[in-house]
């Protein structure tokens, strides 16, 4: 168990100037973990998640900044002396060794006495329910079993930090959900500081105590799942977290600096968001609304013009059973709304959707940064969706 600290960490692969590789793969990465925290790194492909992990592991050198594990600067420490264990996406099991030998390998290298090796391997195997597989070779295992062995190999070492790089992405959907729960349980049991990489935001939300959202090598936001969902820092995070994605509408700011208007919608900025607009100089702003916050409004004949409502034609209807997804054309944007399934809608119909004022998100039209974020009410770390 340990506190991991990354200070202004930079990685550049040193490609030729002008080529794609010449940009920093990771830029100014700052993070201080709690002891025993479960941190998830999430972001689209190529954003630098693996690179960050590999720098913590020591498989890659950081080009700048420093990495501390339990206060010790590890920049010049080889992977084996960093007291970390890594679980690879490909599992990277040694194909020529039995499951037992796979798990025992690191202990054997440290010349651990034989009975100690046996005890620790058996202990890990029983935690993971793979005792009956110990004599098999990896090729005789299913994907899920290999995954467990890979975890077991990490557990046996009793490291200060676990690093897991997309460990579940080779499993089928059902197994992935099971293993997800199991890894969380394992973390609770062992209490080891864990870094977990995924590009699946559902995985990130359900597993992470804190989530690091990355894009193009830069941290976009570090927060609890709840805060990421409720108070995204910018449009990227807002769109990345939550399924279906948040809807964005381009709105004009009216002269009263409160009303936000388009041809077929009208919103009102309240509270901190409203105050933020007072000092905002631009005339336009992005309004973000999550599909699950949109409500169907019986058409009262008033049409648009009412506060916090929008009106448009239904272009797509997707009944999913419990809910119905509809896509509505609002000005030049497609807005997705998640409606109760008892609401009867038909294709081509013009409907009115409403959203509570406090659920609106505002973003600067140019920088795409959030406007008027309220300070979060202090939340317990273990918040999960």
């Amino acid at each position, binding site marked *: 168990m340990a506190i991991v600290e990354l200070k202004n960490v930079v990685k550049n692969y040193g490609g030729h100037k002008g080529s794609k590789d010449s940009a920093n793969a990771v830029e100014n990465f700052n993070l201080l973990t709690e002891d025993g925290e479960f941190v998830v790194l999430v972001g689209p492909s190529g954003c630098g998640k693996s690179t960050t992990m590999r720098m913590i592991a020591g498989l890659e050198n*950081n080009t*700048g900044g420093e990495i501390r594990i339990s206060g010790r600067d590890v*920049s010049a*420490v*080889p992977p084996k002396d960093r007291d970390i264990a890594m679980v690879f996406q490909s599992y990277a099991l040694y194909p020529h060794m039995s499951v037992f030998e796979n798990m025992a390998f690191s202990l054997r290298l440290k010349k651990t006495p034989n009975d100690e090796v046996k005890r620790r391997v058996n202990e890990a195997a029983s935690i993971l329910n793979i005792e009956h597989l110990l004599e098999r070779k990896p090729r005789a295992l299913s994907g899920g079993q290999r995954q467990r062995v890979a975890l077991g190999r990490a557990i046996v070492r009793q490291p200060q930090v676990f690093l897991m790089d997309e460990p579940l992405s080779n499993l089928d959907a059902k197994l992935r959900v099971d293993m997800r729960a199991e890894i969380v349980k394992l973390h609770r049991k062992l209490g080891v500081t864990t870094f977990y990489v995924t590009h699946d935001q559902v995985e990130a939300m359900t597993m992470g105590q804190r989530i690091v959202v990355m894009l193009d090598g830069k941290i976009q936001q570090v927060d609890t799942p709840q805060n990421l969902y409720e108070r995204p820092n910018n449009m990227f995070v807002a769109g990345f977290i939550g399924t279906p994605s948040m809807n964005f509408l381009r709105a004009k700011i009216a002269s009263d600096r409160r009303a936000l208007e388009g041809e077929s919608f009208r919103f009102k900025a309240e509270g901190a968001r409203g105050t933020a607009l007072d000092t905002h100089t631009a005339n336009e702003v992005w309004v973000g609304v999550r599909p699950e916050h949109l409500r169907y409004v019986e058409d009262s004949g008033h049409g648009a013009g009412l506060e916090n409502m929008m009106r448009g034609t239904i272009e797509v209807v997707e009944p999913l059973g419990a809910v119905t997804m509809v896509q509505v054309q609002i000005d030049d944007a497609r807005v997705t709304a998640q409606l109760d399934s008892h609401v009867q809608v038909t294709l081509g119909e013009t409907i009115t959707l409403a959203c509570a004022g406090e659920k609106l998100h505002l973003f600067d039209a140019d920088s795409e940064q959030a406007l008027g974020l309220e300070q979060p009410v202090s939340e317990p770390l273990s918040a999960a969706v």
Partner: protein
Amino acid sequence: MDSITTTQPVHSGKAAKAQRKVASAPTRRLMAPAVIFLFVWMIVPLVMTLYYSLQNYNLMMPTMRSFAGILNYDLLFSDPTFWAALGNTLLLVAACLIVTVGLGLALALLFNRTFIGRGAARTLAISPFFIMPVVTGLIWKNMMFHPVYGLISWALRALGLEPVDWLAHHPMMSIVIMISWEWTPFALLILLTGLQSLPEDQIEAVRLDGANKWQEFRHIVLPHLGQVLYVVVMLESIFFLTSFAEIYSTTGGGPGTATTNLPYYIYLGAFFQYDIGSSSAAAIGAVILANIFAIFLIRFVAGNLNAGSQR
């Protein structure tokens, strides 16, 4: 060689230190033995050959050594035997390549079918590849090509034809036959493996598209074999360019200069005329010829490296 260091451009001095400490494997130390060995046994002698080629140096008169400039090359270029040897070398390489690749491809297609006894038949067919070239020369020269007692003569007589003195009247063709006999199995073996790695579904898809056998071969099989063919051609070129034992044990380069290729020409010059200087000049010629072929291989190797690093 100072070309084997591993350090990459790094930004701050501190990180540079870390770079060396953490991830730099002892690359230089691991590669040094092989590099040094090849350097001492190949590059150093090559440079010495170049040096000798600029010397007046005959082992019959070892004390009369002097700088010759390009004299040896002048002599070489005015020696009709050299040109004959160069022509023979090219002819040999070209003919053997055509025969082995063409025949090898045809045989590979034959052997790629499923039939009873396929393993045994294949094993028999590839056996010539394991025969020592000197033995090949002796067997063919005596028991196959002999104008009176050879099997081929017997067969021709049995068919009512006139026996042929192969080595005397068709010397180059005889050499090509022997070398092709040794190397067709090699082409067969590798092309067959290439064929077997062709995904079944590609063939099925093209059949569903209504392609006939020839179109199937032309548009699916051949492109798939492209890279493998390339390997066969390049490796065979290396060996064909340096053919020696088959000639040494049969024609001895004759009759006249009919089967004298560059290696044999150099061998004769050095070991029978003791002329170090001009033999070295000829050797440099052989190296240059080989390097023209090498350029292609190197392209292939380099291309392969790039493909590999994209994994």
